[in-house]
């Protein structure tokens, strides 16, 4: 369980997040949507403890996240950002192995090695294993980074009972991906988020993908949570018009959600 209470974050005089309270439960996929400049990325950075809010607090299972040690937090909190550049020639495997850095001191253990094998397989990047990361396309890089982030949170096989929750944040994870990989990514995120001890919070732009995959949608506008709930609750015609400034039409798909078309 992740709880943010009355958080505000501003840069200079400009508020990016204004007095917002929100909580995220484990085993559910939460997706944040909102127009450009709504404060989506900022919110994720505050929740993931990259930014410290000027007021309010962020708690992981009731413990203030700013009291936790960096190294300890890195074992259970991972963030997938967009467009990661590597300054020097590193192989794909070396990049994925970085996800295990918080878990070993000197050299990676056999467990770390096999987790890296597993996540690379899971993300279909095993064939690039020895390629230089710099030579990959944007979409391939994104898959490698997702593998790295999964490696960071991957279950190392030890008993789960006493372990604290794991926290996965995704800041526009679908950037640079073609439609097949977008769907594939969302399915993998969906599966990962189903684990009982994982809190997952992501930012996406595509309202239809959000509606299709999220358990819980958070609509953000001007640094405030406008609506928060299931797709059917949140994505109403009035709200979309008001927040995004476009008029939607809902086309029934035969599934639980309808497809949104913009006029």
């Amino acid at each position, binding site marked *: 369980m992740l709880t943010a209470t009355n958080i505000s974050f501003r840069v200079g005089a400009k508020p990016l997040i204004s007095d917002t309270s929100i909580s995220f439960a484990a085993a559910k996929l939460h997706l944040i949507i909102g127009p450009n400049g709504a404060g989506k990325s900022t919110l994720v950075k505050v929740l993931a403890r990259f930014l410290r809010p000027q007021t309010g607090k962020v708690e992981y299972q009731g413990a203030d996240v700013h009291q936790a040690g960096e190294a300890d*937090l890195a074992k259970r909190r991972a963030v997938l950002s967009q467009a990661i550049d590597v*300054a020097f020639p590193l192989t794909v495997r070396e990049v994925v192995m970085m996800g295990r*850095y918080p878990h070993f001191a000197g050299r990676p253990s056999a467990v770390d090695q096999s987790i890296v094998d597993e996540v690379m397989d899971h993300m279909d990047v095993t064939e690039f294993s020895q390629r230089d990361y710099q030579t990959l396309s944007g979409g391939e890089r994104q898959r490698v980074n997702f593998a790295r982030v999964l490696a960071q949170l991957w279950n190392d096989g030890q008993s789960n009972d006493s372990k604290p929750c794991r926290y996965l944040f995704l800041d526009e994870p679908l950037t640079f991906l073609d439609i097949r990989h977008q769907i594939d990514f969302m399915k993998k995120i969906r599966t990962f988020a189903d684990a009982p001890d994982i809190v997952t919070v992501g930012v996406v732009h595509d309202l239809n993908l959000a509606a299709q995959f999220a358990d819980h949608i958070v609509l953000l506008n001007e640094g405030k949570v406008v609506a928060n709930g299931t797709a059917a609750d949140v994505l109403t015609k009035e709200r979309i018009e008001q927040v995004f400034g476009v008029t939607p039409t809902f086309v029934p798909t035969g599934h639980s959600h309808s497809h949104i078309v913009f006029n």
Partner: protein
Amino acid sequence: MTKRSSSRQALLLVLAVVTLIVLAASIRFGAIDFSITQITSALGSLLPGHPEATLDQRIFLELRLPRAVLCLLVGASLGVGGTLMQALFRNPIVEPGLVGTSTGAAFGSAVFFVLGGVFHIGVSLWSLPVAACAGGIISTYLVFMLARSRENARASIVMLLLTGLAVNALFTSGIGFLSYIARDPQARSITFWTLGTLSGASWRAVEIVTVSTAAGILLALHYAKQLNALMIGEEEATYLGVNVNRLKWIILSVNVVIVAIATAFTGVISFVGLIVPHILRILGGADNRFLIVGSALTGATLLTLADLMARLVIRPAELPIGILTSAVGVPVFILLLRRRQYVF
């Protein structure tokens, strides 16, 4: 991974062997050559119960040998310094000489030489290295403070290099001023300082530089994994549990201290720190655990080769070593710039 890491270990072993071979050549050849029998008998004279060393043996033990060892240590310091700076700035064209560290350290040493004599400041074992460190810290700090733009707290590489150019010019003219007001013997040593030379090597210098180099390399290795994480960005490194600000300060301090202390005894030797990590990345990739050890060995080897050339080219006289490293380093630097493979 395992294949790559074992080939890296093999590479490091080869580099270590090459370093030893070059060291052997360095103690054998010079203004006068020593035969292997002379070398062993000179070393033998150190053992208790052996006859007093002859003049030749003393030249070997008190000039040649400390010079060769100092050269290894300084080369290692400069190589590691370059690796650390490049890792910190995520850019392969940064080196300690370009951000003012070396010139500042040389200026600190020059102040010590000229004014220390005038004011009779206590000349203890550590006063020269301390003066050099102070100079190095001031100049490096100046470069970073001035290169920071108002909007963006992070210094851009272009700003950093241009500011480094200006600060280098300032401290070089400071050194010029000191040599202008200095009385003759001091002035001569200052000139050599700006060009770089190992001719002042002594066992005392070796002792001090051994401490700084060894401590610097060990600390750097301790942070190698965190420096690796920094390669994918400061934000990502933070998510991997790295305290980026603390890491920056530690690495910058290690770099300033090892480079400044090396510079205190040899003057400004440029471009070693630039070239060495680059060669190694081509050979074995960018993992900093490999780069730090490798750049210590390769820096030591390259500087020893340069020193050997400096002693042999116009023997029995010798060239300042900084002239040689610049002659090789400048074309490499320009080549790197022109490849434009890197984002500025």
